């Protein structure tokens, strides 16, 4: 800038011209775009990138929050993999939860979407109703409701008793059933996947079905030969989304079971939280977080690589 000022009057003219173009440039769509995304970028930097970078640094320290972190190299990871049985318990519980809840939720979402895709006066109401659990689903209130429902004297047991099954199981108190109460809660919250499936279903060209009708295909064939293949991109998208969501599940475990019994429902995120804040082992918590990122990243990568094998893109 400073060397420009030294130049003669001729130069000034050109500069003025440039300023004109600058004013014009300010009116371009690109600038407008930058301005609009600026707030997001600032938020993204200060609430995502910088904290993530810090957490990466903390992962290699012993840090009790209350005093300054101390560098300890890979100690946290060594402790995690070799000397912390609870870490593996929480990893196992989370894997179990994801492996069962994600496919079940997707199947549920697809089935309901297939029912609701038909046009009828009431379908709007039904869509709203089925979506409702997803809105309230991760709230504390629902978590507490769930705990009451599955109590030994709760409504689930009462209903079973009403139909003649004498059931007094403490669903939340057994290692084999407690995790399933959380999985059922997750499956119940199929709403957002359902909406995406609905959108996907509507994009399948009607002509395909018309041809199928002419050819005399039965509904079964129509579903497996037309609907399902055409829907694979949507399924793929939902699968990735729900997989990541599954690993991030927190409230259910934290509020409903608190990891009980015997850490069988202690989700990875909850144990990470306990380490970071309850036990004041922030460095260890950060190390756990980064291990989770690697696992989720690897699974997502595998899914992306597997696309050619099963996802059908029309174009």
């Amino acid at each position, binding site marked *: 800038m400073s060397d420009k000022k030294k130049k003669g009057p001729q130069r000034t003219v050109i500069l003025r011209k*440039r300023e004109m173009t*600058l004013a014009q*440039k*300010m009116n371009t769509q690109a*600038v407008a775009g*930058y*301005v609009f995304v*600026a*707030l997001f970028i*600032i938020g993204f930097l200060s609430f995502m990138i910088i904290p993530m970078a810090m957490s990466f640094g903390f992962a290699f320290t012993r840090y*009790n*929050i*209350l*005093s300054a972190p101390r560098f300890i190299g890979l100690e946290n990871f060594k402790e995690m993999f070799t*000397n912390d049985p*609870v870490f593996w318990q929480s990893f196992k519980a989370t894997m179990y939860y994801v492996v069962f809840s994600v496919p079940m939720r997707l199947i549920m979402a697809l089935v309901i979407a297939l029912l609701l895709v038909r046009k009828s006066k009431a379908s709007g109401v039904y869509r709203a109703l089925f979506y409702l659990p997803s809105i309230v689903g991760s709230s504390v209130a629902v978590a507490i409701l769930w705990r009451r429902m599955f*109590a*030994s*004297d709760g409504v689930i047991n009462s209903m079973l008793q009403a139909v003649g099954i004498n059931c007094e*199981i*403490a*669903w*939340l*108190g*057994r*290692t084999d059933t*407690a995790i399933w109460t959380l999985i059922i809660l997750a499956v119940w919250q199929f709403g957002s996947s359902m909406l995406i499936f609905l959108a996907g279903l509507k994009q399948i060209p009607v002509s395909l079905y018309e041809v199928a009708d002419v050819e005399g295909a039965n509904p079964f064939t129509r579903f497996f030969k037309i609907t399902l293949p055409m829907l694979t991109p949507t399924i793929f998208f939902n699968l990735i989304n729900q997989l990541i969501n599954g690993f991030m599940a927190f409230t259910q475990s934290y509020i409903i079971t*608190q*990891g*009980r*019994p*015997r*850490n069988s429902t202690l989700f990875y995120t909850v144990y990470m*939280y*306990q380490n970071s*804040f*309850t*036990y*004041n*082992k*922030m460095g260890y918590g950060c190390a756990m977080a980064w291990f989770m990122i690697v696992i989720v990243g690897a699974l997502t990568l595998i899914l992306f690589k597997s696309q050619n094998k099963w996802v059908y893109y029309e174009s």
Partner: protein
Amino acid sequence: MKKFIAIILIVAIAVGTVFAGGSKEEAADDGKITLNLYWWGNQIRNDVTQKAVELYMEQNPNIVIRTEFADWSGYWDRLSATAAGGNMPDIVQMDYSYLNQYQQNGLLADLTPFIEDGTIDVTNVPESIIASGSVDGRCYALSLGSNAPVMVYDPAITEAAGVTIPDQLTFDQLYEIGETIYEKTGVRTYFDGGINMMQILARSYGSHIFDELAAGDETTMLKHWTNVKRFNDSEASISPDLLSEKNPDIVETKPIVDGTTWNDFSYSNQFIAIVNAAGRPLAMSMYPMPDDAVEQPMFLKPSQFFSIAETSAHKEEAAKFLDWFTNSVECNEILMAERGIPISTAVAEAIMPLVDENTQAIFEYIDAVGAIATPIDAPDPAGKGEIEAIGKTTAEDVRYNTYTPEEATADYVSRAHSILQSQ
């Protein structure tokens, strides 16, 4: 380049506007001083503290007190996070087991100057109570009352079963009474497998649980897990499934609340909350002790403290609030000794005739414990939280028969030992 600068400028203006909006909000309080007050507790404490705070704001129109509360475990999660962020609330409730940790990290304001210049009036407060919140002769935490471990029981059930509960049971007596009660009424017994019972057990033999764990000594822990197993195997005891579901850690869901068990374990200042949750009269007995105890394990503990954050910009005003909280009869008529017997003897005397029978029972209980109590253990070491959590799962391992008492002991002591070593 220019485009870039222009964008930066626009962004700066945008950010400026956002921040300006923020400071405008602060100024809207008309120069009032805002104090943040944070505590853990139960519904009653939340209600009465809120009422007391409102009264204080009425009497001091230039002060605005923002309150926040949480349950015990959530409280410490949040507090450490705010401490790390440098925005700890001005006044925080503090516990004996965390006092050292927070003081050592320079997070608590020294209250001694305020006591010396009379901002916090302690003329009616016994010296020992100031000492309980002091580190190296400087006071960092003002006690809010005295507390003692307690076994709560349902007198209606014990009466129906024809048994009487003495001031303090031995384990054998507890076991037998539990069986009688189950036989007569079908109500079950709960035996505390947690850190409080470990502490009481160690103290019964003149030892301290954290000393033993730090040294890798298995003596007390083997006894403890054997006891847990013994009670769990009794037909009269609550099943591990139900116990896990009811979760005795939370007052509102304790198994005694819905009458699944006739007894429960807690601290005396939780008594009123438990009675309220249960909605029927309950009574107190001291923690049971082993039959061959060589020392009385019961002790008195400061129930909780108020501390002022070192980062607080209004320490003086915060200290004035502490003074009011401690010495105002009016305030304590609202609080009604919910946090424990008021430390000011004048205030305690003034509200004694006003308190309900449950609080009266606590006053009497604390008196009875005070008569026989032995000195409290040193404040808990860092790492206590994790050791306590591992203890809970180990208790479940024993109750679900995954571990024998011997295996539980070996596993628990070695893990606790390594946690204490690494601090």
